[in-house]
């Protein structure tokens, strides 16, 4: 009997299907940005993935070594163009820390407001990307419609739609404009209502939910070890938010909840990672309301910017901030001149992309865009 099994096994071996490498990118509709994903597929299943980045590398860090401190701010806007304010905020915060100065209260609150507006707008861009990745253009267009209102707030605050060039070392460029607080509260109220339209469209549709449920599980340990940060990490049970646990710029004076899912089970799937961002948008609305109240309490004539020296004393320091996509860090080594000696940017996506191998293993091809959409690609900051 045992002998007769041998030819059968051989036949099975011969019937093995070949694995195939499919290369997605650099021009591919799923890559929101410019990167390549090499996928090894076995039938409909992915068995391996190899992300390739660097198509947008322009030596950002090297170029900053040739600019004044003040002239780097517009460049930081172009690091992550979905949420440009967070990076200029982070940069200014890092330099202020190196200078050892404290900025006015009002500037801190304005930065918080601007940050959260950017967070909502970036998450809406992400939602739009989820819509196209899932094959539903309605979600894309509806969230783009909502995003325009927040871009209008940017215009109202500083005159530019996306690359705002607004924070300054030692404060912000200008005070809040007239009626800005009224407009922002109206926009936020309106947004909270309109958001439910999109949520009904997605969460009430079993197709949407079943496409995200039960695929690409990540455990808490995996997330921490691989360096996956941001909403994706909080969906998998890591209870950590820099705004709460390592507060900067008066976030400790604001009362808000950090949405975390699966605190007990410590395993999260794609749908959890999706839910976190939706929750975060509502939390951001809350933060905006509180911060606007604080700005109003400070009065119109409160200072919003202080003079700072142009030269930064020698030494190394770093600032840390909760980006819409995760943990971003700027590491500044200065040598006492008016130009940074070295400025390193830690972009959350850079590490998150490296996790795509673990995220894509074992899922179907059709799920790969849905899984990777939860990273929320922004290649400008990844490649730098």
């Amino acid at each position, binding site marked *: 009997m045992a002998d007769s099994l041998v030819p059968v096994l051989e036949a099975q071996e011969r019937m093995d299907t070949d694995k195939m490498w499919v290369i997605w990118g650099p021009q591919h509709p799923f890559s929101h940005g410019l990167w390549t994903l090499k996928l090894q597929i076995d039938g409909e299943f992915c068995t391996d993935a190899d992300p390739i980045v660097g198509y947008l590398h322009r030596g950002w860090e090297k170029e900053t070594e040739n600019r004044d401190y003040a002239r780097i701010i517009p460049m930081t806007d172009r690091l992550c163009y979905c949420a440009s304010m967070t990076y200029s905020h982070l940069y200014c915060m890092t330099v202020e820390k190196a200078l050892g100065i404290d900025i006015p209260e009002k500037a801190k609150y304005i930065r918080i407001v601007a940050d959260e507006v950017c967070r909502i707008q970036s998450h809406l861009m992400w939602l739009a990307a989820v819509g196209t990745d*899932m*094959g*539903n253009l*309605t979600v894309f267009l509806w969230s783009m419609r909502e995003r325009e209102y927040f871009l209008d707030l940017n215009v109202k605050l500083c005159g530019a739609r996306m690359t705002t060039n607004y924070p300054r070392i030692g404060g912000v460029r200008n005070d809040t404009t007239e009626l800005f607080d009224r407009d922002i509260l109206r926009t936020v109220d309106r947004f909270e209502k309109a958001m439910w339209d999109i949520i009904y469209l997605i969460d009430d549709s079993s197709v949407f939910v079943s496409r995200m449920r039960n695929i690409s599980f990540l455990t808490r340990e995996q997330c921490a070890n691989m360096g996956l940060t941001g909403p994706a990490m909080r969906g998998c049970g890591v209870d950590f938010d820099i705004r709460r646990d390592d507060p900067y710029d008066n976030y400790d004076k604001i009362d808000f909840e950090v949405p975390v899912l699966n605190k007990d089970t410590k395993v999260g799937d794609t749908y959890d990672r999706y839910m976190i961002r939706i929750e975060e948008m509502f939390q951001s609305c809350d933060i905006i309301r509180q911060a606007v109240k604080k700005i109003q309490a400070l009065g119109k004539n409160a200072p919003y910017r202080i003079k700072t020296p142009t030269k930064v004393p020698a030494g190394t320091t770093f600032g840390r901030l909760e980006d819409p996509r995760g943990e971003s860090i700027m590491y500044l080594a200065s040598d006492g001149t008016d130009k940074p000696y070295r400025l390193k940017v830690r972009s959350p996506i850079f590490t998150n992309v490296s996790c795509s191998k673990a995220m894509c293993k074992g899922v*179907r*091809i*059709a799920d790969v865009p849905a899984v990777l959409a939860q990273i929320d690609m922004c290649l400008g900051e990844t490649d730098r």
Partner: protein
Amino acid sequence: MVEYSSLLDWIRFIDPNTNPYTPFLSDNLPYDIAYGLWEIIGGTLAWLVNLLFPNNVVSAWLIDERTAVMFALLIFMLLIFIVAFVVVLLNLWMERKVLGRLMDRRGTMIGMKGFLQCVADGLKTFMKENTIPAKVDKMTYIWCVSLIVGLSCLVACMVPLSDRWYVVNYDTGLLIIMAFYALAPFFILVSGWAQNNKYSLIGGIRAAELMISYEVPMLIIIATISLLAGSFNINDIVNLQDTVWFVIPMFLGFIVFFFCAIAECERPPFDIAEAETELVEGWQTEYAGMKWGLIMLADYLRGSVSCGMVAIMFLGGWTIPFIGGTALPEIVFLIKAWFVFFLMIIVRGAIARVRPDQILNIGWKVFMPLAVINLAIAVFLKMGGIY
């Protein structure tokens, strides 16, 4: 030979049914129109030729009954195709406008409220370079397009618009339409292979995967309907619905058939063969210019056939309950078909694309039992003597 001098002597406007060679057994409006047109054209030509060369053979041949049937059939073909084509353009226009409105946009706005957009697209694909990638299997690459487009045109022409607007009136009309309709996925599979592109290969395989999942419930429902009607003849099926549409007793069947019809013409949410985010353009990735334009046209032709089938089988075709036939049954039929297409657009706007394995699941675990339940209901109705 009679001496013909006046033009009106040459154009006689006889009833085509008195022509012994008429291929149609019953009234056929497009054929009547085509016959009348040919009488005008052929008569005028014959008159002109007769003026120059009296008593020649050619003018006699031109007004011969057999010649008239031949040319009338040619014009008839053109007429049927043009009507199907215009219906498809209207479908396309409706899709763009309705989808635009669903998404808070205006849709396209080029000429005549956006209707000319598809004409512009067509002209543009005409202008584009006809590229054939270097490493494709050229024969299959080109022939598959022709077959897909040709079959789709054929099927679109075969759907009758009313009992007087049809191409053939076989007793097995429904089956023939379905048979031609189900052929296209094979050619999609072959063309996906021929393109030497991994995306299109996966797309082609997915088209085959899609086919085995919805074709069976779809055929069961067609069998159910023909069981109720007692024949596969489209006329019989429609005539049976002059009081109650089949959508009321066969509601389950309607739902299942509607979604299967969406899957059959590979429209979103069942467009896994050309799933944009995964497979760029799926099995059409390497097609460019005119070929791609024709493929898009074929897609919409198949869409309009799907809608027509739903209208015939469940919504009473060209009849209105208790009134029966109207003066313009074609318009009644088209309005119903467009309503079904409108529903399809709404579904497209609301639902995300489903996964291939989900389609298999839905096809075999949901649609299949529902179709069988539907069949059971039909059997009970038949036994109860209601139909």
